[in-house]
């Protein structure tokens, strides 16, 4: 299990998963379409992963494939991985996929995610170095969280290298204080 305090992991677990209730549940307001606090067996609800995961293990619900891993996405990623907008589908595409693959019994998920990541990885690194220090390109709006981190790591390593070569002031204003204020006069 990931670190308890891992912010990314927590947000990833908020991803909604479509589930079908196998058993009736009493005393909870889960189903937005139901008027009472009773959920009947067979009702279809979208639950966040943190809830669906445990309930699935206890066989209270059965998970279905989430929309971001549908057939169409797979086809698009297979055609030209680097041009697909994964951010709008799921910000934590890879982590979510890894977590959910054993639950929905999808054996091809692993190799599918790997090949998608591989084709996109190449593009990200190339662009991070070439487009360095210009305005954030359109590319950034397509990237998942993981890929954005990669992109930023590549850029900051370039910046650090340049600083090392050219040199600069050793002391700087602490970054915690935020951006520089405007001069008072």
């Amino acid at each position: 299990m990931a670190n308890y305090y891992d912010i990314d992991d927590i947000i990833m677990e908020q991803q909604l998963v479509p589930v079908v209730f196998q058993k009736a549940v009493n005393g909870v307001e889960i189903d937005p379409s139901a008027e009472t606090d009773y959920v009947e067996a067979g009702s279809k609800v979208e639950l966040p992963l943190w809830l669906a995961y445990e309930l699935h293990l206890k066989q209270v619900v059965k998970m279905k494939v989430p929309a971001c891993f549908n057939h169409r996405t797979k086809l698009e990623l297979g055609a030209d991985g680097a041009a697909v907008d994964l951010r709008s589908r799921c910000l934590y595409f890879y982590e979510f996929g890894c977590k959910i693959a054993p639950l929905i019994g999808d054996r091809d998920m692993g190799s599918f995610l790997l090949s998608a990541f591989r084709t996109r990885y190449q593009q990200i690194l190339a662009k991070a170095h070439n487009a360095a220090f210009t305005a954030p390109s359109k590319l950034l709006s397509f990237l998942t969280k993981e890929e954005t981190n990669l992109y930023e790591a590549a850029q900051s390593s370039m910046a650090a290298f340049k600083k090392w070569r050219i040199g600069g002031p050793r002391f700087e204003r602490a970054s915690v204080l935020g951006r520089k204020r405007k001069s008072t006069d």
Partner: protein
Amino acid sequence: MYGTNAIQLVKEIANGEKGQLTAFSSNLFKDVIAECSQHYEDLQKSLRKMQEAGIDFQTQNEDHYGFLIHHLSLLRNKRCLMTYMHSRAEMLRNLIWKVGYEIPEEIEEKLNHTEKEYFKKHSEALRSYMSRVELHLDMDMVPPKDPYIKVRVLDDMGEVQLPSFNTANFAQHSMHFLKRTDAEKYISLGKMEELTG
């Protein structure tokens, strides 16, 4: 839906700029805690109901699964609350190394009173440790080429007593040739900048 307030709290940290403290959202924080108590009350209520009906609560009926969902939501809320405090505490600890033992005003007003207390105690602990090992751990790690540096004053500070027992008049835009150790604090607070070349 359960846990939506809690995730807002965590997202606040995630969406903020890296390493930047945001104001403590006490309202949202209270809401999440209220939600927790609500879950607890619901649990108690249905437990009592089952006891009155004489059903063992291990029986896997619909109430049992209701318990489970309330229980999981409680744990989830707890995780979010803990993470919120934990990552803010971490930022505070980093703050000491960067700006020293006094919290700048613009950051202090963003803190919850327990956090202020925490900052104070942590810096005390750090200071007493450093005096015990007789090492200034908060100094710059790279040995300087020159013990003196040239600086320009950005904020008008007037007459200032320096740690090296000199006084200097730091008027805005004035330039000074200072001992490196004296200048460090002001640079990291953004009141001076180092001049190179």
